[in-house]
């Protein structure tokens, strides 16, 4: 015996299926773009990492590329450089972004927009153009801008990009002063999303500015901080442009990052197999770091 609800259920199911179909059609473009430009290259890189890739005579070499990578001292040096760069730039950059956001939020809408635009400007400027400006700032001769500035404080002339003592610091300073536009905008959005009643209630309880920061702002923007931390660490591990344009990885590989090493392997020496192996090892390392970050910081975060 057929249920009375049978036809209605079937109709609903059919409607759902039809809607699902339209859903799939709507996401077809991003799905296609993801499949072609992300998924396929990753799978291809995985296969190439087991080969000695040549346009005409590719050979299967098994784990040789991974073995070579793990035996290469420059790989470890570049990994250490990347960890140092990430370990300094990400926390400092987030702290700076947060501080600037806190200063911007109380301003009028018009002023907020001005500062958001001003801080976001480097993000839309060409990296090459920026590197020219920074090279000018880091001019090694006494007439250089930064050298003139430090000379005011009695510091000797510095070979900013040419000495391994200062080259990494120079790249970090460059990153710190020109790359928090996006973080500031996201932090401001999060800060504006905090309900005013929390502050009013805290005011009534006589809370100080720092107490409000500690007990209201920080916990409520924790999801934003975790998001920025994770994406910044991922981005920082893949850093390439600044080292490539400013120092080329020198002097004596003091600023060679893993991204630059992979680039050189692939495009300078045409060793795509080993470059793919290095890229996949880097992916695994980033994955582990991200997992640890979520474990340490994301347990009590609701998205």
């Amino acid at each position, binding site marked *: 015996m057929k249920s009375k609800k049978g036809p209605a259920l079937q109709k609903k199911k059919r409607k759902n299926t039809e809607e699902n179909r*339209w859903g799939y059609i709507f996401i077809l*473009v991003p799905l296609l773009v993801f499949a072609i430009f992300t998924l396929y290259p990753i799978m291809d890189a995985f296969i190439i990492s087991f080969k000695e890739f040549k*346009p005409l005579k590719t050979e299967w070499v098994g784990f040789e590329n991974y073995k070579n990578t793990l035996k290469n001292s420059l790989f470890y040096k570049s990994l250490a450089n990347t960890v140092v760069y990430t370990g300094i730039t990400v926390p400092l950059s987030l702290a700076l972004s947060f501080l600037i956001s806190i200063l911007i939020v109380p301003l009028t809408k018009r002023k907020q927009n001005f500062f958001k635009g001003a801080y976001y400007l480097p993000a839309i400027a060409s990296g090459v153009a920026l590197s020219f400006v920074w090279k000018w700032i880091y001019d090694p001769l006494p007439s250089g801008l930064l050298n003139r500035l430090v000379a005011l404080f009695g510091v000797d002339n510095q*070979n900013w*990009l040419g000495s391994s003592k200062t080259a990494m610091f120079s790249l970090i300073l460059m990153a710190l002063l020109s790359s928090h536009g996006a973080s500031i905008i996201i932090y401001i959005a999060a800060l504006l999303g905090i309900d005013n009643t929390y502050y009013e209630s805290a005011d009534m309880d006589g809370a100080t500015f720092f107490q409000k920061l500690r007990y209201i702002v920080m916990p409520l923007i924790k999801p934003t901080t975790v998001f920025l931390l994770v994406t910044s660490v991922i981005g920082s591990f893949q850093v390439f442009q600044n080292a490539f344009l400013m120092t080329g990885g*020198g*002097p004596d590989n003091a600023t060679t990052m893993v991204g630059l090493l992979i680039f050189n392997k692939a495009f*300078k*020496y045409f060793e795509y197999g080993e470059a793919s192996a290095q890229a996949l090892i880097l992916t695994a390392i980033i994955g582990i770091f991200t997992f640890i970050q979520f474990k340490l910081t994301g347990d009590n975060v609701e998205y």
Partner: protein
Amino acid sequence: MMQLKKVFTLLIVTVLAVGSLAGCKKDDGAKGADTNTVTKDNSKEDSSDTGEEELKEDTISVLLPPVTPTYQDNFDKWSKEFHELYPNLTLQIEPTSWEDVTQKLDVQVQAGSPPDIAFVGADSIFKYIDTGLLVDISNTATSEMLADFDENILNYYKKGDGLYGMPAYAEVHGIGGNKEMLEAAGIDWKMVQKEGWTYEEFREAIKAGTVKEGDTVKTYGFVFACSGVTAADYLNIFVRNAGMPDVFNENLKYAYTSKNFLKLLEALRALIDDGSMPKELSSVDAGKRWNMFLTGQTMITGKGLSVFERSAKENNDKIDAGDGSAVEGSIKTEYIILPVPTFFGNPISAAGAVDGYVCFRGKEEPEPQHLKNVAKAMYFLAGGEVSAVTCNDLYISPVCETGRQAMADVEIPEDKNEFNTETAALLVSKISEARPDITPELGAKAQKISDEVIVPKFQALLADEITPQEMYDAVKAAAIDAFGEDGIAVD
């Protein structure tokens, strides 16, 4: 209405989906001769071709950087002239910048779809040979074509048994000085141009050319661009005059393990320690050192090219005309070509930068006739009028007979310094012998040592972070690793 919305949505999705695939088209057109035939015109064909063969239409793709300031302005004219010479052939030239050319070419090579012709230096072809896509032109170019070039210069494109390119020019990479400052420092530059100088003489000369105001150096005796990979130029140019004209000796042993290499490193470090070169040398890039030359902050600069005489003159003209585009703070300078000093009693061996045209194939086996057509296009670009115009722009002489003949019809720049012209010719005659015996495998290994060990260590040496001995030991260890104990020079 709902139906219309769905159709409209479907249409947009389809357009976007197809759009995302745009550019993925496989273009085989340039790699094989088209099947369309044109009217026969055997009189235009090369003598080596059979008069009976069908003249198929063919397009030859070329990727070219701005070899000279006016080079890319001539592309339309040259394409037209080539088509008039060979009516069935079309030259499709893609201009690109110096910044992009290598990366663009490398990506195309790795994708298996490079242009038919590219502009590549003779010392950079090892990695392309290794891909299997660089074509040996010894069988596609005619003997008449190849006989046109100066043999030693053409041989720079010979690696092992193959010939992989036709030279556009041979330029000596050396050093150059400010005439007024050289004379003020008591340097007889005319004699140096003729007879060369030793390291000791050079060292004293740049000491004399260094001018101080109190504790601040106003003018350095010598500044060479050493930032990034340009550090390799400094070493490569000077090492030739220290008894190592090539990275492999005549017995194909890696040469930079010789004790002379260590002594050279000590000598170069001493120039900085003397105060004749800035201690920040490792950060001075090509633009900076030229700026320093034009603004009187250095007496001698490197790497120097013949065309710098022209660049200095152009800046002088701007200063005279009160043109605001003259280099800020620059003074009028006359550029004097100088030979690189010799070390430890060794003879001059000039660093020849031989650049030219190479032929690539794609993943598909190319048709023999297409390769012959490409050889014609290469010769058109490397020889005759194109060679004359290119070399004239660079203030150098062509390296092929037809180019030298065509120079008669080219307007020579006014006020060219005759002493520089003579010195440039003399130095070209001192360009070290080509080394076709160095196989692509050996060359690629040596290049890797240069990139991974020599350049980084040399930068550290210039920055006074390691000693010459430490750099020498690192190079030796890398060489033993790459070539074995038996593969390195021992003295």
